[in-house]
């Protein structure tokens, strides 16, 4: 019993992930992209990604956010979410190896939710909201110098 009480914390310490993500310096706002770009665009890719959630009962929010991301310069977008709803955020770019990642933070700046999937050019994160209020979605791209990127979200 005594040995167990000593070993358990040590064992847990080995299992707990130590990774942490650098937030970098300031946040870039970047210029908005043309929304009506013909053909395949970051927006059409992000919409395709979001449409994948429709089968699970999600509705796609009709607005979108777009920007040219610079390597390792995070961008924060403010959103307002309601308690009781589930949300999924999808981000995509046309750069095949852009390595996008999404994180969600609450109004106090604390990380919430989880990243469901990340591909070389797209990523999805989501959360079930407990408290109505402001949230922040952080986008980071680490794979190329710049990447035209678009983010949409859906809810249920």
């Amino acid at each position, binding site marked *: 019993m005594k040995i167990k009480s000593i070993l358990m*914390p040590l064992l847990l310490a080995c299992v707990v992930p130590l990774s942490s993500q650098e937030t970098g310096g300031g946040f870039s706002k970047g210029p908005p992209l043309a929304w009506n770009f013909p053909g395949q665009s970051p927006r059409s890719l992000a919409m395709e990604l979001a449409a994948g959630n429709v089968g699970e009962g999600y509705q796609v929010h009709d*607005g979108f956010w777009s920007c040219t991301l610079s390597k390792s310069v995070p961008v924060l977008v403010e959103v307002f979410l309601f308690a009781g709803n589930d949300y999924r955020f999808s981000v995509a770019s046309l750069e095949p190896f852009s390595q996008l990642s999404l994180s969600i*933070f609450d109004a106090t700046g604390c990380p919430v939710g989880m990243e469901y999937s990340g591909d070389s050019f797209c990523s999805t994160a989501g959360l079930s909201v407990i408290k*109505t209020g402001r949230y922040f979605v952080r986008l980071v791209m680490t794979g190329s110098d710049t990447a035209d990127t678009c983010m949409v979200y859906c809810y249920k």
Partner: protein
Amino acid sequence: MPARILQIAGWLLITVPWVGQCSSEYLTPDQMSEASFLETVSIPTPGEFFLALDKQCQPNWSKLVRSSVSASPSDREHLALQLGILWTDGFMGIEAQDGQGVKNTARDILLLAKKLNVGQHILARSQSISDFADAGDWRRLREELNAMHNDIRLSLLEQKDSQLVVVALAGSWVRQMEIGSRLLSSGENPGATALLSQAELSSRILSSLENFPENSKRKAIIRQLMECLRTSTSLMSASPFFFSPSVLREMADCTAALTSAPDATDPKK
């Protein structure tokens, strides 16, 4: 004793990385203040708000549906405000499963859109809405109503009417607050009133309007809209978590003054 030290060391090994990770992952107030606020993403749609309301208090939506507003405002800001209000009404019609009501709302939206020179972009949507309403396909109807609003918004942006997009979104938000306040003013579901705790959002929309050029801000409807947002922000800030029935009634009255008779205060009329 050594066992106790080992145990403490073990717990420290667990907790220190967690604390370290959490602090490095936290956003600072400065970072949060620099976040992008984009009206089209940062302001929730009526669908999101009504979904949350529905989960928390299962309201009788059909009691709230009103007949279409026949006022035909003269200036473009006023038309945009009406568009936003009607968009929210359309969603409420869907919640009430009132197909005819949604069709009437979509018809009114089309009329207003035509006056803003963006009607041609939503003609097909209008027909789809009618078809889905007849079929009682509420999910597709919700999508189509969203898409219609998106088409109007993008067309307005294309013709450099970004201010009208902000006014329409503000109108939609004010109407949502009116409906929410009325629904919850009975005081039967105090927990659900937290959904109306949107002081930051109200303040953000107000800031967007304050950035309008002076000649736009002088218009009666914009002044009235800004006054409504100021009152809403103040009421919401005073009760950050739950709202008393009297505050809810005050908020419903303040918002209804803007949404029910939007032409009444226009000095041109």
